[in-house]
């Protein structure tokens, strides 16, 4: 049953294409703003623009789970940089699964973290689970939630993404 008979199929398809492009740009921007080279740091201002003001950030670590808002996440990140936990950080998306319905979208995004874009292999891998919301005509991150690959938590990309709609290698 069509909910809105005044919208043509072509208009619906056009809107979907627009959403997909916007979400794609948002995810790409998210990976860009959190990456930084030695001496730098994430682009905090641009990061803020990507998130809803109601956003939550949740990370699972072997030692426990952190439940944060954006300001809390930024504070924690700045502390780790001060402590020298990271001196450079390049995160890229390797695989994505994306579902949309109306003003909500859910993205499962596998990532790799390297010390430089030229590094042959990553020093970390994991999966970001993102809930996106359409606010005032723009897609924003409402929830960013991730866990990392570990010996007891291997990242089997194929098995994980083949169950859903796989968009292939995001950066290829």
């Amino acid at each position, binding site marked *: 049953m069509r909910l809105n008979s005044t919208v043509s199929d072509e208009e619906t398809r056009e809107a979907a294409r627009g959403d997909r492009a916007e979400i794609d740009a948002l995810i790409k921007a998210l990976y860009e703003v959190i990456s930084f080279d030695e*001496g730098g740091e994430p682009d905090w201002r641009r990061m803020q623009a990507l998130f809803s003001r109601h956003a939550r950030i949740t990370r699972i*670590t*072997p*030692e*426990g789970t*952190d439940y*944060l808002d954006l300001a*809390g*996440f930024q*504070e*924690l990140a700045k*502390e*780790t940089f*001060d*402590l*020298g*936990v*990271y*001196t*450079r*950080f390049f995160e890229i998306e*390797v695989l994505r699964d994306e579902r949309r319905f109306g003003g909500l979208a859910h993205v499962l995004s596998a990532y790799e973290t*390297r*010390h430089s874009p030229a*590094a*042959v*292999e*990553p*020093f*970390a891998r994991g999966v970001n689970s993102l809930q996106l919301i359409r606010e005032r005509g723009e897609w924003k991150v409402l929830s960013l939630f991730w866990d990392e690959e570990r010996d007891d938590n291997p990242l089997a*990309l194929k098995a994980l993404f083949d169950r859903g709609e796989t968009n292939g290698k995001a950066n290829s």
Partner: protein
Amino acid sequence: MAKLTRERKNQTVFRVLGEAQQHGLILNRAGSANGPECVIGGRVYRNFGSCSYMALEAHPALRAGAAAALEAYGTQFHFSRAYVESPLYQELENALEAITGRPTLVAASTTLAHLSALPVLVQDDDVVLIDQFAHASLHMATELLKGTIVERVRHNRMDVLEDKIKAHRRSGRTIWYVCDGVYSMLGDFADFAALKELLARYPELHLYIDDAHAVSWAGNHGRGVALTHLGDSERVVVALSLNKAFSGAGGALAVPHVGVRTRIRRCGGTMVFSGPIQPPMLGASLASAKLHLDPGFAALQAELEQRLRVAREAIARHHLPVATTDSTPIVMVQFDSAERARSTVKEMMERGYYCCFSSFPAVPIDRPSLRFTLSRHNDLADVPRFVENLAEVVARRRETSAVAVAAL
């Protein structure tokens, strides 16, 4: 407020070090003395992991010094130093004064020297700026400075340091910059030329430098790099190690005035309340100090220098990805991932070379490394052989890694 709690930090360190221990790479016990070779887990390795850069621990003069002190004073002289100290302290401090050209105060360790000195030197209203990769013992000591502003500075970023000095000098405060002379985990020097300029430009600036890893092998009579570059400044305090290359025991503070020495001696908590260095090791340190003052000591330094030069040439020839080209006895070869660093160390050990796996929290997560050190213990011909073996392992593993990534 989001904060890394002490509990969380301890849990993470416990887990990460536990993993390294499971791989047999840390918390091992030796089955031999330190020397050109070392025995670990019953196997003999060529030794590229020792911090005894000058290889003096078995020197006849140091053995004789320890034996003579043992004979004269027994195994311990256990008064509190607040009341009575062994006469060997005075002799040792006089000899160290001749080495450093400054009033010198001996402490039971370099860490205990920091714990005494910083709370005495830094006043409540001062500001402390500390390099993020300064030795852990310095960070520990700054935690005693309750009420004092303490800020971390990105490693060796003199531009950031200057910005912070400019920001704080407006309040008329004394500013302390705390750093290492040679950084123990990256193997690089402090930027002494820039620090000299900053000292000249900002009269509020004082420096406290831990030069533990440069003592003995660097500078006239082995006074280290910090005193070599900045020893003429009245606003510089340098902490030294009498362990490591010096092959004795304890630490020392080389201060600009006798008055500073007296203040730390009277008020420094660990000077008053910690146990003393015991006579045999005071005797060894005194003998080592006399050896450093001997005109022949420069020839021993030249022997190590030759090994450093040979190693650096081989490293450049093989394009090993090292953290720094600074010519120090500490070399960090960096890898993309901790797993790659770990497996490389293990393969080097299979080839009969002892070297160290270095990962978070000793170094940043993004800088997993193989750390090797050079000492006079190393046979000169063994140095390029070690580097060649390492380059071979690194190159082969890089190829394997590239194939694995391409297959993803």
